């Protein structure tokens, strides 16, 4: 099967102008997404994980031309979305829809729920009559678990979970092929998180949706993803099918993220290896040379500063020149040092 979305070497750079810069000074660039590649099959889910500020949202926005990106984003193996003009890309905007991080902020406070959900339909299918549109909105509301009598209410009257359902209904009303969920549950209570993820899974199964599911920790995407991609400072650190990544993580960063995930079973929790990670993520304005993770890596060696790891295996991609499971000696050494 040919992939629905095929991304090659995606880069997003933001020019940074400082106050007091002269118009002719060359702007410095913040390289927010640096050479990301992946394929996404129809109906599958790619989980994208990384700390805050590692470029997850920027990656999502680069894919759909919300920020200027370079590289290649092939849709259904035919069209390169990045080569399209704003007018040409419009039809694709109904095929790729987004769900946002802050459920309430992503809804216009001056519009009723009915108007909000209907907006993509009005934009992409203006020929649909008002009556038909209302019927479809009502149907979609029921589908995501909203009651029909809520249609004339305003976003501020709803809880976070309900607002996210509204956001999902809005995204799905134009029957997209790909849904990009940018941290859809980060702002929600844990009990509500599970409900929203279940809803997304159910909808994905029924509608045959492909999904890019962004989160900042590995536990959230575990349930829903087929493949998981770990980002750090705009680069892919490790990318593998779910089972491989969770059971046999090769990259020290993935291992550190995994060890930070609490395990519900207390015995297993105590037995778990804790992979140490020191310091904070460096500023993306001046990333370290060589491997960008080396400042925090418990396994970093001299050659890590010289060589930029170039992963080649496409099934299990690891951007590390010393990959492999964490050895006890390394853990001990780091704890001592």
């Amino acid at each position: 099967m040919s992939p629905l979305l095929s991304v090659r070497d995606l880069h997003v750079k933001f020019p940074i102008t400082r106050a007091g810069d002269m118009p002719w000074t060359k702007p410095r660039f913040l390289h927010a997404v640096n050479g990301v590649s992946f394929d996404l099959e129809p109906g599958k889910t790619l989980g994208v994980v990384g700390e805050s500020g590692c470029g997850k949202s920027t990656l999502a926005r680069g894919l759909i031309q919300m920020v200027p990106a370079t590289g290649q984003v092939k849709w259904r193996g035919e069209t390169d979305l990045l080569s399209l003009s704003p007018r040409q890309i419009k039809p694709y905007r109904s095929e790729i829809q987004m769900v946002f991080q802050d459920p309430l902020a992503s809804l216009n406070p001056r519009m009723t729920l009915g108007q909000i959900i209907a907006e993509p339909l009005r934009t992409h299918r203006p020929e649909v009559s008002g009556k038909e549109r209302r019927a479809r909105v009502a149907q979609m509301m029921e589908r995501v678990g909203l009651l029909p009598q809520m249609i004339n209410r305003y976003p501020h009257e709803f809880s976070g979970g309900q607002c996210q359902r509204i956001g999902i209904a809005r995204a799905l009303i134009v029957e997209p092929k790909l849904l990009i969920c940018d941290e859809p549950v980060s702002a929600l209570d844990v009990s509500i998180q599970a409900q929203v993820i279940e809803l997304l899974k159910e909808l994905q199964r029924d509608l045959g949706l492909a999904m890019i599911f962004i989160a900042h920790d590995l536990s959230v995407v575990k349930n829903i993803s087929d493949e998981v991609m770990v980002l750090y400072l705009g680069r892919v650190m490790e990318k593998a099918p779910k089972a491989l990544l969770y059971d046999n993580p090769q990259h020290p960063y993935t291992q550190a993220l995994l060890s930070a995930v609490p395990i519900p079973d207390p015995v297993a929790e105590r037995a778990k290896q804790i992979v140490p990670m020191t310091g904070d993520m460096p500023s993306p304005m001046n990333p370290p040379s060589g491997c960008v993770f080396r400042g925090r890596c418990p396994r970093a060696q001299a050659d890590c500063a010289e060589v930029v790891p170039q992963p080649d295996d496409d099934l299990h991609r690891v951007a590390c020149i010393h990959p492999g499971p964490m050895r006890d000696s390394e853990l001990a050494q780091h704890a001592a040092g």
Partner: protein
Amino acid sequence: MVMTSEQRVEATEIAGKGRSPWADARRRFFRNKAALMGLVILGFVVAFALFGNSLAQWSNEELDYNVMGQIVELGGPSIESGHYFGTDDLGRDLFARTVQGTQISLAVGLVGALIACIVGTLYGAVAGYFGGRTDSIMMRLVDIFMAVPYMFVLILLLVMYGRSITILFAGVGLISWMEMARIVRGQTLTIKGREFVEAARATGVSAPVIILRHIVPNLLGVIAVYATLLVPLMILTESFISFLGLGVQEPLTSLGALISEGAGTIAYGTTWQLGFPLLFFCLTLFGLFFIGDGLRDALDPKDR
């Protein structure tokens, strides 16, 4: 789909029509005593302008030959003569003239504010939404216009094209939109960064529709507040021009023109000629300021 208990509770207690952000603001506004008083005052002034003529015994043009020449002795306010507010220096009924002047002043204020709202909002929202070079050019243009001494231009216009009420409306409108455009642009910059605007852009909603459907409705609070402050400003501008003798033409008059006349004759002891127009002028301004204040509090509850 199984309903959560949370949804079921909400479903039973809130069926039907939504509580819009406007309804909330209205409730807060009506709880504000000062704003309510402003509304009553303004309501009184407007009613006076609209229906005052049916109470008047005289028209605003008729000369009362009985009082002519003895204005100081006979032209004062009195119920018997039918001159409730007295007469002016020529023996014309001041009540009818104040009604007429209030009409003109309110109209100038409303038209000026309306033009400011429409032109200023669209201009500012377009500049702010598109940003970049469009924004720089549009806002520099406003800066340049603002540097021109507008009173001078307005007076020049009135001298060149003759004193007509159309020129006055046009002139007042022409100068009033620029400050509005600046305020709206600033607000647009913050609103366009909000996630719901990004959501609309991501689904492919076109720029004009985003401006009209997503940006402007979220600006209405600011616009409403600023407009209520603009109306008095417009009335003041018109009054100043009338005070200089360049405003509306006889037999039409405005509060500013009446105050000017009244101030000219105060030395003879005809205090009512200044007092009554001034009273209505002040009532209008107070009413509008209180309403503006109340609106600001009602629309941004966080601001206090």
